[in-house]
């Protein structure tokens, strides 16, 4: 997510930048997830940010794109009492002139259970089973399309969201840091925080060294004679 506003040469061309946000419904509720990176240009301004803002007790908003614009909406989104999700969706639509961010609104209510609304740039309201947005989302359409199933259990859904965000973080430089998950069902709101060194890694990445390995020199870091890396060897 970019802190700078439009027109500043620091931010990337597309307003939908610097984030991966994922949400999906499962049997009995909804899971939202987001990465934790906020950047200005190439500089990581915040590596553990919280991009999931509450609109009410049971409705949450994942924000991507221009940070100030989406922040205004989440600030204004607080109602007293329990709101239903379509009403929260209506607020976003009425403010569409101000939307240069892309959002995913998800929540749970008594009437409809878990619901996910994608709100891309422009203010379209799209009720979906799952929604992804942000610059990192481009890398995970394939994963989401092929791995999403109806009526997943809560654990399966959380795994799907977390894996999707981790896959996006491993390829998108504008996404990274921590993963935050929020699960909503009839028992309430459940937060999950995945530290940056506990995020799933994939082939090509190296696992984060554990503190148990000691703060001493990483294994193999003392240069060995004539050692060369595999992969794309330059020259």
């Amino acid at each position, binding site marked *: 997510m970019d802190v700078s506003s439009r027109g500043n040469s620091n931010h990337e061309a597309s307003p939908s930048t610097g984030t991966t946000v994922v949400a999906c419904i499962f049997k009995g509720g909804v899971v939202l997830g987001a990465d934790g990176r906020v950047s200005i240009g190439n500089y990581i301004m915040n590596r553990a940010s919280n991009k999931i803002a509450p609109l009410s007790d049971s409705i949450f908003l994942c924000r991507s794109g221009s940070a100030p614009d989406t922040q205004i909406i989440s600030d204004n989104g607080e109602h007293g009492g329990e709101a239903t999700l379509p009403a929260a969706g209506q607020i976003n639509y009425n403010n569409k002139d101000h939307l240069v961010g892309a959002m995913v609104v998800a929540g749970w209510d008594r009437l409809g259970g878990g619901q996910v609304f994608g709100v891309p740039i422009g203010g379209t309201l799209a009720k979906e089973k799952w929604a992804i947005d942000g610059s990192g989302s481009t890398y995970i359409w394939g994963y989401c399309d092929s791995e999403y199933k109806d009526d997943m259990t809560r654990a399966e859904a959380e795994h799907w969201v977390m894996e999707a965000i981790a896959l996006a973080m491993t390829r998108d430089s504008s996404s*990274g840091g921590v993963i935050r998950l929020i699960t909503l069902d009839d028992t309430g709101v459940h937060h999950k925080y995945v530290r940056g060194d506990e995020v799933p890694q994939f082939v090509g990445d190296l696992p984060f060294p554990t503190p148990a390995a000691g703060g001493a020199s990483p294994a193999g870091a003392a240069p060995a004679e004539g050692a060369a890396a595999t992969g794309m060897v330059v020259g």
Partner: protein
Amino acid sequence: MLPRPTTHSKALGPGVAGPELAVATSAVLDRPPQPTAHHPLTGAQPCFVDPAALGDPRQHTKYPYVTGSSVVAIKYKDGVLVGCDMLGAYGSTKRYKSTQRIHQVNSKCVVAAGGEVSDFQHIITLLDELTTDDYRTDDGIELTPQEVYSYLCRVMYNRRNKFDPLWNSLVVGGVQGGVPFLGMVGMIGTHYTDSHVTTGFANQLARPLFRERQHDDMSEEDALALMYDALKVCYYRDKVSINKFQIAKVTKDAGTSISEPFALEMRWDYKLFAQPTKWAVGAW
């Protein structure tokens, strides 16, 4: 260096090896250009199409495609350490995660690069030509880091003058006459030597650490710890980077070596990270 045949064709510029007829006459246009070992068709790699022969203006490198990010390097008691991550980024995509951006020139010298990876691969080809000549001369004399540094300065500056730069920031590190050497050459030919050099984001992030903690007579243990901290801060704060690094070491006694890829331990256990917006709902 062995003398190479050069041409002063207007299309290619002075001092560049090229075909006899770089002006587009029908004799050139009607036959495909023939490359030979002594006459690469352009000043760069041998290829089968000479843009000048076809009448096209020289292409200018306008922007890089696959890029490397920061390089950090310091002198210490026994020599120099040069480190960087292993990412070849494609814009903001972390595309290639095993690019080796440090190249061993000989037992005295390494070169590392940020910027366009293909241009660095070309520079390695040029350096390998020099090293091969040294080997063939077979007199035990190798290029010193200072010579490699001066050569790269000339290459970069001359390409810049043709408005076709090699889009790299190069770090040359080594030991000569028992004394550590460290230099930086930029894509427009800017160059300097110092006790610690960096490229890219590390200029902002790592140089302050070096200014505070680097000494020319520091021990290897302290130097490695400082390098790890510099690489860590580059990973924390440069978004186009990965937690996969290599460090090259050039010493007076043990020559040159490049490490296996390794990851560094990062701190993510701060309490405030867990719930940063608990008391500031709506903030990030």
